[in-house]
């Protein structure tokens, strides 16, 4: 980025012509012409440019992806820049306005931070020249940087203060001890100007302590050194210094270096901030979607239970038992989630079976039983469009397959049956036995256990069935039932 280096030349004199001469970073001739050659009016407009800046509005629109709002803001920036003679900023704002008009988000993303940095730079530069004219309360959105100068030479510190104090907040310390004391008191500088050669603690010692402290490690440190010694510089870079300035200090160079470093660091921290905001937004959105997905699955599962009044809560319980088994099998969080959804929906095909059969209190006729047996295929048909989580289809389609091949609808056997369906089969049978049915009460825990044991290797996968037996054995009070 280009920098306008302003030589320090004392207090504002109050004479408008003199002040305007200090606005070297603006095309004041152009600005004055716009302002009908009225110097006082020109300075008024320049002050307004700072006081009524659109920085925060721009940022809000940018982060909210509000491109029509963004367009209005950069449009205003463009025309204001033209009035004061800020040509570079005007050109940049114009390109951004065009991009916003076309919703060229890629271009905006690539250039927004550069525009903001330029804009802030200009606002700071103007404020430095017109401190008395500008109502600081209104322009408090511009961050005021604090620079800490640590040097045992009072003369050097004075030079730094003279050059930089118009633009920046300056803190001073004559020794490392004094410096750290002030840090402990809560001063957090945006940049440290550090003399290398000092009695007692020298610059190397001090930067070592800074970089070892989590609170200060991110603060850029610039070394000031007398010698043009390559090894000192190399050592300094290794220790984490960002730049070197040679003494005696040249005011213009000092200003330019500090401006550049602060721009880069501020830009970087802003980018990090934005990444955080955007990442959080994505996470929130993902979480919302997950919650919605779960709610939809739950609602679907409820439709089955609503139809079958004797098996109220059946889907929830099968899901719960399935997840207990899955945990014992060492399933990951993701696998458990898929198992949970598959189990919740395993009976969805019952929607296609007439209510009279589903809710019949007496024993079913052969014909009726054949109809009930079609529910896995109906369920599979309903769920076959969910290809992203195939487990959901498998659970509904194959949860009545038996390990020995005697089940339905396809008569699959052994490991040919999807594992998820084998788990649901065990959990489903367990819940059937531990629920009150119209034609019988709930079985005792011993009875359930022996039925399950009998089915190992025939109806049930022996490993999954054994896991369920273990779960039963651990359930001392027989709490796992309807």
């Amino acid at each position, binding site marked *: 980025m280009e920098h306008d280096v302003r030589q320090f030349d004392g207090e504002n004199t109050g004479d408008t012509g003199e002040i305007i001469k200090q606005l070297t970073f603006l095309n004041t001739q152009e600005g004055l012409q716009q302002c009908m050659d009225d110097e006082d009016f020109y300075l008024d407009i320049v002050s307004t440019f700072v006081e*009524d800046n659109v920085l925060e509005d721009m940022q809000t629109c940018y982060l909210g992806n509000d491109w029509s709002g963004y367009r209005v803001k950069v449009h205003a920036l463009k*025309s204001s820049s*033209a009035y004061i003679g800020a040509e570079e900023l005007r050109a940049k704002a114009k390109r951004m306005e065009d991009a916003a008009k076309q919703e060229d988000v890629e271009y905006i993303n690539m250039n927004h931070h550069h525009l903001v940095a330029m804009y802030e730079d200009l606002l700071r530069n103007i404020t430095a020249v017109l401190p008395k004219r500008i109502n600081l309360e209104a322009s408090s959105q511009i961050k005021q940087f604090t620079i800490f100068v640590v040097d045992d030479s009072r003369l050097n510190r004075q030079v730094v203060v003279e050059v930089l104090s118009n633009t920046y907040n300056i803190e001073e310390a004559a020794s490392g001890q004094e410096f750290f004391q002030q840090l402990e008191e809560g001063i957090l500088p945006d940049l440290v100007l550090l003399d290398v050669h000092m009695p007692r603690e020298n610059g190397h010692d001090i930067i070592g302590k800074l970089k070892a402290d989590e609170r200060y490690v991110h603060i850029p440190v610039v070394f000031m050194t007398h010698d043009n010694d390559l090894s000192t510089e190399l050592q300094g870079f290794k220790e984490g210094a960002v730049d070197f300035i040679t003494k005696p200090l040249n005011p213009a160079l000092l200003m330019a270096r500090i401006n550049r470093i602060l721009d880069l660091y501020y830009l970087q921290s802003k980018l990090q901030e934005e990444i955080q905001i955007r990442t959080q937004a994505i996470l929130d959105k993902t979480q919302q979607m997950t919650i919605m997905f779960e709610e939809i699955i739950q609602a679907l599962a409820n439709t089955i239970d609503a139809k079958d009044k004797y098996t109220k809560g059946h889907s929830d319980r099968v899901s719960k038992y399935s997840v207990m088994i899955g945990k014992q099998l060492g399933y990951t969080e993701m696998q458990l989630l898929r198992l949970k959804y598959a189990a919740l929906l395993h009976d969805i095909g019952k929607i296609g079976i007439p209510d009279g059969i589903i809710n019949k209190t007496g024993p079913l006729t052969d014909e009726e039983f054949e109809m009930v047996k079609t529910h896995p295929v109906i369920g599979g048909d309903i769920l076959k469009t969910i290809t992203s989580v195939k487990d959901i289809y498998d659970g509904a389609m194959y949860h009545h397959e038996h390990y020995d091949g005697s089940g339905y609808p396809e008569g699959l056997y052994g490991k040919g049956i999807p594992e998820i369906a084998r788990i649901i089969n065990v959990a489903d049978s367990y819940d059937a036995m531990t629920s009150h049915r119209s034609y019988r009460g709930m079985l005792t825990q011993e009875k359930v256990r022996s039925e399950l044991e009998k089915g190992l290797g025939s109806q049930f996968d022996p490993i999954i069935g054994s896991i369920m037996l273990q779960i039963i054995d651990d359930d001392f009070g027989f709490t796992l039932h309807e």
Partner: protein
Amino acid sequence: MKKILVVDDNVVNLKFVDKMLKSNEEYKPVLVPSGSKALQFLSKNVPDLILLDILMPEMDGYQVLEEIRKMPGVADVPVLFLTAEEDEGLQERIKTVGAQGFLLKPFKQDALLKLVGQYLA
């Protein structure tokens, strides 16, 4: 005295128009930074002329004018658009919404005074 309502979201623009208009002692500019503020002013005051920016947040110039034309008492006040919009069809659109004319930004003082003068004779 001729009362001129100036509506623009950009304060720098407002100050410019204010400065330019005040060179004529007969003109008394009233500055407002948004369409809603303009309508609020118009509900109690009748200016001799309205100068209206187009690209503004919330309510743009076209929408503001649409509201103005519905307001009893001020519906007949001449309206001039001040705009940097060089969109194709700008002239057409300005006619259909019922504005008297427009001036492209950035404009010079004499251009503004000349145009304004036509409606405040």
